[in-house]
């Protein structure tokens, strides 16, 4: 019987319109293969490789936009209607994230082209690793199954370890990649142990089944120790990805030791992917709760994330204080921002409640804004590093005179990172605070207070850089920077202004994608072996 089922499954492998939903990921893989083949046919030059990478990025971007369009017009799409299986989910959330990821990938490739392409002898390897981690991240946001989540996270992590220590003669890079890899391997192993416990308790790898089991367990009032252990162990892996305290130790070291374009890539893409994954998991937990009145059952989970968020935010901001290296300071700032974004994830709302997607919209808007803030700030830092050879805060002194077109975007990005108006960072924080406030619970107000206090704390160390750029001047020579780099950072700064004054379109757009999140289909109890049964019915 079992064999027969599998035979049927093979005979009915989805093709055509289903595969179209995976076209962005397939294109990423094809680009990687093309870059592997390229040295044989066209040579290993930076120019050739970057050309192929650019073609791949454009193709992926167009296809990702098409998938995004398909998910918003047709509602829930093809494969995602499989109840409970959730091995691969294509919906507004995953498609939206993929589009963002590709935009960011283009920005990072641009930075690499400006800074490293001239002296880089291993360009094909660099792009294979970069695209490999991008593939893993886009898989992370499209799965609700423990197996797929684990595989996706490893696909994202393994190339990241290697790319951090990409320059073989760089001692700092070697050290950074070792620390990143050791931390990552430990967290992944603990996460897998947690996954095995969850599988043992529920007999299923589907997150929906695990959520149902958890809610039923909490409803009967018996607090299953093994279940809590499994969930916590699993959370360790995700917390590592978003660099939540106390799993953040890799973050400053890896960010400081890596090349700056790699740092830029990891600071946004890897964290955002982890956050969107966590958001999807919490949404599934919320949607399996019977009625809005029962939401208090999963409050322990919300509090776990809330405390993680509060601690991450505070530790990140306090550690950023004493940093002399701007790269390292931005690393701690990215930890703090991961904390703010975790706060948006901690907004648990039942799908039946009006306005339940507030937390989700806030997170997506924040990720969009955070992308531009970080790309801008790291872009300016990159150009200082290329010109002066170090990223010490002293190299920024007198930047207003030495390079006004770098200093102004840097100020805009830093003020936006603090979250002050009239810049987009304010909008991002404002909507997270609104979402928290709309909960009107102890948890919500607790996080609001933590977020506001942290914003005040963070003001100091961001302003330290601004003061260094404007008020201190030690007579250093003017900074020579490529025109392309100036364009990149100024576009980012401009985007931050535009997004503040034209914030509403962004919100309505993300809101529309949020509504297509495929939660409804996951709430229906899954029959045993959902995928196989679906294919048998099709016969």
């Amino acid at each position, binding site marked *: 019987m079992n064999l027969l089922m599998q035979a049927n499954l093979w005979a009915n492998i989805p093709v055509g319109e289903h595969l179209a939903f995976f076209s962005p990921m397939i294109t990423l893989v094809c680009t990687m293969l093309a870059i592997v083949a390229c040295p044989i046919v066209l040579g290993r030059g930076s120019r050739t490789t970057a050309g192929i990478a650019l073609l791949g990025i454009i193709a992926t971007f167009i296809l990702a936009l098409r998938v995004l369009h398909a998910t918003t017009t047709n509602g829930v799409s093809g494969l995602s209607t499989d109840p409970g299986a959730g091995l691969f989910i294509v919906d507004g959330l995953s498609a939206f994230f993929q589009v963002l990821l590709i935009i960011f990938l283009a920005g990072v490739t641009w930075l690499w082209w400006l800074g490293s392409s001239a002296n880089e002898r291993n360009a094909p390897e660099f792009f294979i690793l970069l695209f490999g981690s991008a593939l893993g991240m886009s898989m992370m946001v499209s799965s609700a199954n423990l197996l797929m989540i684990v595989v996706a996270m490893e696909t994202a992590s393994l190339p990241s*370890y*290697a790319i951090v220590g990409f320059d073989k003669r760089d001692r700092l890079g*070697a*050290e950074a990649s070792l620390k990143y890899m050791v931390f990552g391997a430990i967290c*992944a*192993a603990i996460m897998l*142990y947690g996954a*095995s416990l969850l*599988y043992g308790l529920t007999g299923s790898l589907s997150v929906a089944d695990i959520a149902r089991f958890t809610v039923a367990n909490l409803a009967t009032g018996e607090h299953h120790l093994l279940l809590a252990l499994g969930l916590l162990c699993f959370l360790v892996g995700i917390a590592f990805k978003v660099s939540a305290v106390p799993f953040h130790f890799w973050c400053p070291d890896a960010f400081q030791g890596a090349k700056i374009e790699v740092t830029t890539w990891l600071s946004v893409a890897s964290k955002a992917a982890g956050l969107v994954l966590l958001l999807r998991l919490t949404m599934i937990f919320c949607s399996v709760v019977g009625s809005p009145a029962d939401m208090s059952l999963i409050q322990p989970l919300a509090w776990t994330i809330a405390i993680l968020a509060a601690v991450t935010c505070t530790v990140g901001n306090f550690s950023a204080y004493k940093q002399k290296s701007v790269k390292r300071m931005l690393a701690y700032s990215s930890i703090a921002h991961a904390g703010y974004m975790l706060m948006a994830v901690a907004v648990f709302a039942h799908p039946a409640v009006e306005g339940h997607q507030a937390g989700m919209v806030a997170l997506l808007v924040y990720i969009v804004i955070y992308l531009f803030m970080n790309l801008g700030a790291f872009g300016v830092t990159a150009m200082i590093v290329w010109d002066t050879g170090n990223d010490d805060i002293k190299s920024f002194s007198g930047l207003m005179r030495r390079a006004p077109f770098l200093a102004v975007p840097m100020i805009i990005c830093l003020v936006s990172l603090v979250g002050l108006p009239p810049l987009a960072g304010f909008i991002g924080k404002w909507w997270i605070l609104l979402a928290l406030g709309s909960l009107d619970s102890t948890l919500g107000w607790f996080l609001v207070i933590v977020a506001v206090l942290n914003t005040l704390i963070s003001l100091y160390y961001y302003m330290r850089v601004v003061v260094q750029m404007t008020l201190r001047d030690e007579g250093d020579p003017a900074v020579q920077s490529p025109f392309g780099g100036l364009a990149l950072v100024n576009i980012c700064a401009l985007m931050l202004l535009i997004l503040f004054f034209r914030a509403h379109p962004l919100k309505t757009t993300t809101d529309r994608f949020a509504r297509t999140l495929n939660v409804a289909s996951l709430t229906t109890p899954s029959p045993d072996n959902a995928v196989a049964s679906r294919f048998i019915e099709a016969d």
Partner: protein
Amino acid sequence: MLPDDFLTYLTIGLTHYLVVGAVLFVTGLFTMMTKRNAIGILIGVELVLNSAGVNLVAFDRYMAPGRVDGQIMTLFVIVIAAAEAAIAVGICINLYKNLATVDVDSARKLQG
């Protein structure tokens, strides 16, 4: 004298596998925490990964008979462990070339 239900203890059941898994997990965790050698830490990681593998197969056999999810996941765990070891050893060799040691305590240039 042996206890009456001695034979039931001898029959290998789920608990035995879980105990093996838990022992592997704790040993691995202990190794990861105490070893200062990067390769030693990796051995600890492999132990923990294998404890997950043992658990998955055991749970699959006893808790969810007829389904193969756990066994498939174990195969993936093995592949992940292999991939991770490949990358990790590469990074260790790179560290050795630069610092002439794989002691994680010697990697202390990045701090603060």
